[in-house]
Structures are given as structure tokens and as C-alpha cells.
């Protein structure tokens, strides 16, 4: 029989550990943690592989490739996210939380949830590029080093999410 998933960690303790990892990252590398940057590496590598002539003839890809001479995937964030995948998997494994599952609000169709996740992902991906970082790279890491831009991005993300939460409540709650 499958064991019950364990309880989540105390949020403050988890936050403290996360903060410590972030501090170690800043101390060792001088930069913060991130996530969307790794996804960008994947996009760049894909474009380079699938449409090399397009990458060579478009200014944005040319600039990016010029600043990443070893290839998009040999980037700090890409390796960091490989670590995130392993770390999350191990954590899920020891807490009996690894399972194929589609999580959704109580009144939501599977297809709706998948479409919303893709659309939401697309918006998040696009926004993270515009704001030069996502919740990890801009908001969290920015807060640690007290960057004005990072904290502004954080307030903008959460402010907007609160602003529209009411209109999308059917995705998540019973009201």
C-alpha cells in the first residue's frame, strides 16, 4: 500500500532554509538564484538547433549567442535548474509526494486546467523576459540584495495577481 504523503515543512523553517541557500549562492557566486533564465537557455538552444539560419540572421539570437560562446546550455542557471529538478524530486520522494497527477481547482475540467497552465506559463515566460527575471531571479534574489528593480517587480507580480484573482476565482475556489 502506498504511504500517505508527509506533511509539508513549517513554512518559516522552509523559508529560512531557502534563504540560507540563496545567501550561500550570493556569497559563492555573487549572483542570485533563478529559474526563467534556464528555460530561456532551452529556447535558445532549440532555436539554434532547429533553425540555425534564423538564429544567425536575427539580431536578438546573434547577440545572445555572441554573449554565450560556449552555447546557451552551458550557463549557471541551466545547471542550477538541473539541481532544482533533482532536489525537488528527492524531497518529493522522501515525503511520498511523487506521483503523476493533474492538480486543479474543485470545479475545473482537466482540459481547462491544462489550457490555463499553458497560457499562464506563456504569460509568465514572456513577462519574465520583459522584467529581466521571474519570482526567483528578480523578486526573491532582488529582495536579498535590496535591488529596487527586483522589489518593484515583486510588488508588480503579486499586486497584479491580487488584482485579477477575483475574475479567475472559478479556476481555483468554490465561490
Amino acid at each position, binding site marked *: 500500500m502506498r504511504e500517505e504523503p508527509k506533511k509539508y515543512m513549517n513554512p518559516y523553517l522552509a523559508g529560512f532554509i531557502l534563504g540560507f541557500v540563496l545567501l550561500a549562492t550570493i556569497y559563492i557566486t555573487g549572483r542570485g538564484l533563478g529559474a526563467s533564465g534556464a528555460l530561456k537557455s532551452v529556447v535558445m538552444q532549440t532555436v539554434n538547433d532547429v533553425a540555425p539560419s534564423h538564429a544567425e540572421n536575427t539580431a536578438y539570437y546573434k547577440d545572445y549567442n555572441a554573449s554565450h560562446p560556449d552555447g546557451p546550455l552551458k550557463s549557471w542557471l541551466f545547471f542550477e535548474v538541473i539541481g*532544482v529538478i533533482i532536489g525537488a524530486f528527492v524531497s*518529493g520522494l522522501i515525503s511520498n509526494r511523487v506521483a503523476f497527477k493533474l492538480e486543479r481547482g474543485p470545479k475545473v475540467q482537466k482540459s481547462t486546467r491544462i489550457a490555463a497552465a499553458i497560457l499562464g506559463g506563456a504569460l509568465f515566460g514572456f513577462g519574465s523576459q520583459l522584467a529581466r527575471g521571474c519570482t526567483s531571479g528578480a523578486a526573491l534574489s532582488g529582495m536579498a540584495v535590496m535591488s529596487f528593480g527586483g522589489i518593484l517587480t515583486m510588488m508588480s507580480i503579486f499586486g497584479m495577481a491580487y488584482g485579477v484573482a477575483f475574475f479567475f476565482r472559478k479556476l481555483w475556489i468554490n465561490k
Partner: protein
Amino acid sequence: MGPLVPNIISSDFSLIIAIILGFGFGFALEQAGFGSTRKLVGLFYGYDFTVLKVFFTAGVTAMIGVVLLNHLGLLNVDIIYINPTFLYAALVGGGIMGVGFILGGFCPGTSVCAAATGKIDGMTFIFGALLGIFAFTEFFPLISTLYTAESMGNVLMFEMFGLSREVFALVMIFIAVGAFYFVQKIEDKVNGVTPSSSKKTILNYSIVIGVAIILVLITIITPTRSELMHQRIEHMLSDESINIHQMDGDEVAHELMNQYYKYNVIDVRSKEEFDKFHIPTAINIPLAELSNLENRSVFSQREKINIFYAGESVDAQRAYLTAEYFGKAENIAMTTTADQFKKNYYELNTVSENSSKKEKDIYLFRSNAATKLNEIQEALLKMDQPVEKKVARVQGGCS
């Protein structure tokens, strides 16, 4: 002194560290419950504020850590990556991400955690994020104006409010604690739970908060390492018994004429003064920049003897003591000031017939020395110029 990459740890090895740190990041996120989309969006509907609690605690913990490491002189905050501020890109990009958060129920980091633990919605979110990033790179020319508008540089939050880093950290602790208290009330109300914290829990939280506040207060009250250094140097300057190895201008000139290659002559005046006149072969490191990281190698090398000179001989002594403080190199403070040296050697009054022998000798020595030193300088100029040392800011960010 941190950061350790790239000066202490190589860039390739840093990729292995990336995996290790990423492991910790992913582990903490998953343990906090960030692999579950229902838990993540909870804060927007009031039933679960885990995101805010974890996020704020992590941010404040790291922030206090940075303040402490900076105070102890273990981390150079001037070169760590500071997310640059592009006002409109941050606001609009953040807003778009906010909508994406509600629709998709994840942010990129948490979607990776969800996918790693088998959540199909996490995987589809990642797929969507890749599409969104691709859309950005494809349509970049259309967005580039917004992307770069209102560039404000590496602005820091506390600078905006005219506070010190430490005081701002203290403010953030209070904001965080206030927010934790407030959201717990909302959470209890929405979930219909009667608040029940045992005395022991309250005590434990109070201790943690207290420790955080005390740590920051200590950094405010106690002097930083560089302040300590300056205090010590000033104290030593006023102490007659301290032995400072000194030479006057003539001795220095004599040494340079015969074996210039044995010495680093360092002019600690401003760049403008240095450009107007400097002793041949000298390099310029203004006194205030002497203790900067990029100049430390001057103090630790053992091949050459450092000779410091300044606009006032006490500044040369300060430079000497700074050098002694940081490294094992042999140092000398020149007693003759820069202006005096210039007068003695390059604005030399001719001696008359009835001057004393000593005056004549000095004149002869100094005019010879001036010519010789200029020749040495000329010869050195033809060789490689010294490389100007700079410590660059670390590159980072998510873009």
C-alpha cells in the same frame, strides 16, 4: 572575501556548485509545498499564505545574511549582482507575470518543482513558459523600446529612501513580522479555524525574530572592518613609538636611479594631481581606493618594495600603514611631498659661484637624477604598459 567566483573558484567548477545550490533550492521549495499549485495560489484567495511566509522569510534571511557578511568584510557588496532597474519593463513585465500566476498557478521555479514530482500541470506550465519566452525573443524588436525605457541603473531600495542598508534591513524585518501576523489572521478566518498558538510556539517565534533584530542592530552599532582599520591607522599615526619605514625624496631618487625595478612607486593623490605631475615610474592609487579589493595584490606581492608618496607626508604614512595592515609586502613612506619633489628636481634653481660645496653637490645630483628618471620613464613606456586592474560586477539575473 566573497563572492568566490570567478576570482577564487573557476567558472567551470561553479557549474557543479550550481547543481548543489539548485538542489537545495528545489528541496526547500518542494518541502514548503511549492510543488502544489493549490498551495501556491492559496494566498490570492486567503486560504493558504504559505507562499508569502516562505518567500518573505527567505528574502529577509538572505538579506540579513548579506548585511552581516558585508559588515564583517566577508562579502564585497559592491560587486555582487544587483538587478538593474528598468522602470516600465519591471512594472509591465511584473503585471504580465501576475496574470500568468493566477492563470497558470505557478511561477517558473515552482513549475519545475511540480514537474519534478510528477505534476502534469507543472509540465504544461513549463511548456507554456518556453512558448512565452520564444514569443519574446521573436518579437523582441517590437518590444525593445519598452524593454530599455527608463533605465535607472543598479538602484538599491534603501538608497531610494535615504536609509542605510542596515536600517532598511531592520524595517524589512518589521514589515515581514507584521505581514506574517496579519496573514495568519486572514488564513484562520477564511478557513474557519480558531487561532491556537501555544505559549511555547509564540516564545520560539519571538526568540527567532529577536535574534534577527539583534544581529542587524549589532551591525548598526559596531564599526565595520574598514572603519576599524581606519581607527587603528589613525591611532598608530598619533602614536610616536610606531616605527614607520621612511625615506626622503633624495634617497628615493637615488634608489630609483640605480635599481628602479626593485620598487613600486605609488602616488596616493587624486588622479588629476597625478596627471599633472608624478614621480617617474609611479602608478596612481588614490588613498581612498587603496583598501579596495583590486589593489590588494600590491600589498601581498613580495617581489618589489612599495614606496608611497602623497601631497602631505602624513598621507604617505597613512598609505604605508594601510599597506602594512593588508599584506606582507615591504613598504616605505616618502617624507618629501609630491610638490616638494617636483620643486627639488624639476624646478631646480641654478646654483651660483659662491654657493657652498654641499649646495653644488645637491644641485648636480638632482639635475642628474631628474634626467635619469625621465630616461627610465621613457624606456618603461616603450615596454608593456601595466594592466589596469578592475574588479567587474558579477553578471546574473534571469534574462
